[in-house]
């Protein structure tokens, strides 16, 4: 049984879609990095601020000077271009991953789920020779081309996409999102002036419908993409959904990344067929054949996927085996592709990876309460665009010697963007408290206690205390931090959205 599974995982599959995924992801990331630089965000996000929030365990990550920053972004860009072009694949990917991950680790307030996804994709791709198809390498050296790769590579990338969508759906499965249509209600009201869409978005029931549509989309899209018959419509939905999110929200590269990532669910040989189709169209066009005739031509569509897949897999029994036996990249053992099997250690590693990806985002349930409120287990969990949360934060610093108390605004240390991002996140509020204390020590007040008046509004609710105002954030034990007792319980009332409530049948 295990042997069958391991052999099945090594079954060769056309490498065309994997090569295309590598190219598209690299291109999207290169574009995203260029956009970041051209918008002047390096200065705003990394040069101008004087304080940066650290990830636990990564306190050693420091923000370099402007020259270093541009070098870092330049390295990430070069790496992304290398990945896209498929040249010096392993080095390019390593450079991209190192630089891009470092950039993400420099300040927690820059955390984005989709950049985490890119890092995960990059980590997986380190073990996949995706430069063996549709790359500069194979263009220069056709003998390097591998027309098939082990199927586990495709499946694990698909799994990663599925994890994102399913956990994004689980994150939406709460009363605010599904019952009260919040925060969609707030967001759509703010976008009621949009050209054409605005009047529709302003309709009171539309946010509620959109909430459900978003939830059902996230919950089911992987299934629809996996079934051949529904795939065209599902991918159409992917494009429409992400186009919507791109237009409605400042969501950056996320729509592009997911539109690219979902191509993994296409038939593995789709780029080859696309290429052949374009060549055929071009040839017929140059022959003077009418376009309409070509589009409906049985002869043209005859270069269909099944024959293509046969083409792809028939030839490569030998190429696949060549890959398997010669490549140090693959987890596959030696021997021909049909006879090879995934190395058990690699299989265990893959299983551990998948189990971690499936379970780790659920850790917020261990803490109880509302993760959107206490934010414990919020990051790395695909809780994408699920809350509208803003808070007013004022630190109260007490001189333990004299009892004198001062108020400190986070804006003293942070810029607008950072202050806004950190205000709803208790761990960042606590982290800044230590910086405030250090500042006071440097100014001659060595013994201080730092408390905070933190009032947050979640999904439009009235302001509610986020953190116990009596707790000294500096003297919390690790156990207390883990237990989260310093965070006040979430507000219990429903988010007020009269029109949505009426649709939901509430008074």
């Amino acid at each position, binding site marked *: 049984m295990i042997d069958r599974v391991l052999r099945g995982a090594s079954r060769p599959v056309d490498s065309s879609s994997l090569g295309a995924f590598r190219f598209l992801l690299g291109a999207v990331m290169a574009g995203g990095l260029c956009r970041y630089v051209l918008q002047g965000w390096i200065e705003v996000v990394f040069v101008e601020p004087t304080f940066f929030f650290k990830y636990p365990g990564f306190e050693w990550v420091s923000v370099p000077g402007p020259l270093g920053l541009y070098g870092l972004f330049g390295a990430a860009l070069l790496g992304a271009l290398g990945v896209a072009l498929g040249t010096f694949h392993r080095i390019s990917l390593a450079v991209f991953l190192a630089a891009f991950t470092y950039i993400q680790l420099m300040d927690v307030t820059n955390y984005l789920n989709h950049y985490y996804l890119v890092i995960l994709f990059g980590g997986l791709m380190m073990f996949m020779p995706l430069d063996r198809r549709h790359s500069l390498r194979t263009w220069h050296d056709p003998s390097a081309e591998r027309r098939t790769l082990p199927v586990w590579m495709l499946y694990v990338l698909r799994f990663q996409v599925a994890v994102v969508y399913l956990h994004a759906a689980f994150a939406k499965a709460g009363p605010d999102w599904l019952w009260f249509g919040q925060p969609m209600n707030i967001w759509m009201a703010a976008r009621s*002036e949009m050209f054409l869409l605005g009047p529709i978005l302003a309709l009171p029931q539309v946010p509620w419908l959109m909430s459900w549509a978003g939830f059902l989309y996230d919950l089911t899209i992987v299934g629809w993409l996996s079934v051949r018959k529904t795939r065209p419509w599902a991918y159409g939905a992917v494009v429409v959904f992400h186009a919507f999110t791109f237009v409605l929200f400042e969501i950056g590269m996320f729509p592009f990344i997911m539109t690219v990532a979902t191509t993994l669910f296409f038939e593995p040989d789709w780029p080859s067929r696309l290429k052949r189709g374009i060549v055929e169209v071009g040839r017929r066009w140059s022959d003077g054949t009418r376009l309409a005739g070509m589009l409906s031509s049985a002869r043209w569509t005859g270069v269909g996927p099944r024959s293509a897949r046969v083409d792809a897999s028939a030839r490569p029994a030998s190429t696949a085996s060549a890959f398997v036996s010669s490549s140090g990249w693959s987890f596959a053992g030696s021997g021909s592709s049909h006879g090879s099997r995934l190395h058990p250690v690699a299989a265990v590693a893959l299983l551990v990876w998948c189990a971690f990806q499936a379970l780790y985002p659920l850790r917020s349930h261990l803490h109880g309460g509302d993760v959107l409120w206490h934010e414990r287990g919020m990051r790395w969990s695909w809780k994408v665009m699920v809350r509208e949360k803003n808070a007013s934060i004022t630190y109260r610093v007490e001189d333990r010697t004299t009892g004198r108390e001062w108020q400190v*605004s986070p804006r003293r240390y942070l810029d607008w963007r950072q202050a806004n991002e950190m205000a709803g996140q208790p761990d960042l509020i606590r982290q800044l408290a230590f910086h405030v204390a250090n500042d006071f020590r440097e100014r001659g007040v060595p013994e201080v206690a730092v408390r905070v008046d933190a009032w947050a509004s979640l999904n439009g609710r009235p302001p509610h205390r986020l953190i116990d105002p009596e707790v000294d954030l500096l003297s919390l034990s690790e156990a207390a931090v883990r237990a989260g007792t310093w965070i006040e319980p979430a507000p219990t009332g429903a988010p007020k959205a009269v029109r949505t409530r009426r649709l939901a049948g509430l008074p």
Partner: protein
Amino acid sequence: MKIILNFIVPHETNRPAAAGHAPGCRPRTYTPEPGAIGRSRRCRLGIGLFFGLVLAASCGDDGAGADSGNGRPTLDRTPVLESVADRVVLPAIRAAEQAFANMEQAAVSARDGGDRAGLQAAWRQASLSFQALEMMQFGPLGDLGGPSAGAPRGGRGLRDEIYSWPVVPVSLCAIDQIIANDADRFEAPDFFETQLANVYGLDGIEYLAFVDTTDNACPETADINADGTWDGLEDSEIGDRRARLAAAQASFLKARVDELAEAWEQNFRDDFVSAGDGSSVFPSGQAAFDDVYAAMNQLDLLVKDDKLGIPLGIHAECLEATCPDRVESRYAGASREFIRANVEAFRRLFLGGQPEDPSRHGFDIYLRDIGRENLANDLVQDMDAMVEAAQDVDPPLPGALSSDAETLRTLHTAISDVTTTLKSQFVSVLALRVPQEGAADND
């Protein structure tokens, strides 16, 4: 679309294709299997049901975008923007225009031998008029750079040209150095354009109009003291030069206020109220709301923190018991009136006019229109308490720091109540974006 579909889904090679057509591409003459009709109907039914729901939703009598029952359409930001522009900002600018013209006239009169008290009175009026505009730092008053730099749209940096306290407080020594060294230059038309903002502005004129000594504010080691330049000036000459510099600054400031008025009246007002509807500055009314909200934050940063919190020793910038030297308007002693002007102007900005104005259409009305009566009522109530607390402050600062600290603390708390709600629920409910938020993506 067909081309795309062909590559996403492989054709069913085992399905018989109609002659002359691609497998899977159903021509009009294709005879469907019996089950296909059912599927097609169900599909149409589903689509119909969805659009029916949307249609039903759009016909609801409580619809956002429909009449809210008081004759005003909801989710229309234009009335708020019109009210803010025409009932709050433009009247404040016109008042400032007049007050700054009077101040220029009074400064010229003082320079020509007239009464310095006239200049002092005119300065108070001009400063009070500008204190109202302090709460309205969006558009031309705002910084240059646009939203990605944390600045409002259409910013021309005029605020700091007119009054740069407390970010760039005036340097009294630098002014005295100009008095001593540049007397033959400072009346040139472009003199202040070549100077840093710390030598001119309302606080610069305050010093020149109210200082009651002929000493200078520089240390002994400064050039004008070390080389005897200042000591070489007669007291009357110092007075004359100060009056001349005050007049020059008053003319420069009046020109800036005129520029502000011109910018608002010629273009910005129309761009502001037509936000999202042909405006060349604001892509949407929401963007205009964002900028007004950013300006509202001056109540927190400028009034609560800088004007009250620091002098009172509440804020960390003051580690002493109190910091009277951080009080605004130390020479004229007008800080109390300034704070009153600030909080009243803030309330006008929020209400879109004077509270008693029946035609105003402020954020409170907008909030009620979108079903947020409680939030609107809370904010209005807190603002009234804030304005009342400001009226209670007596005597003027800095004296009140010691003699009436409790009243000042009450005012500080009252302002906190407003800004807490503003920064949490208000910004959430309206999905407002803080400055610089555009310098990042969401997800």
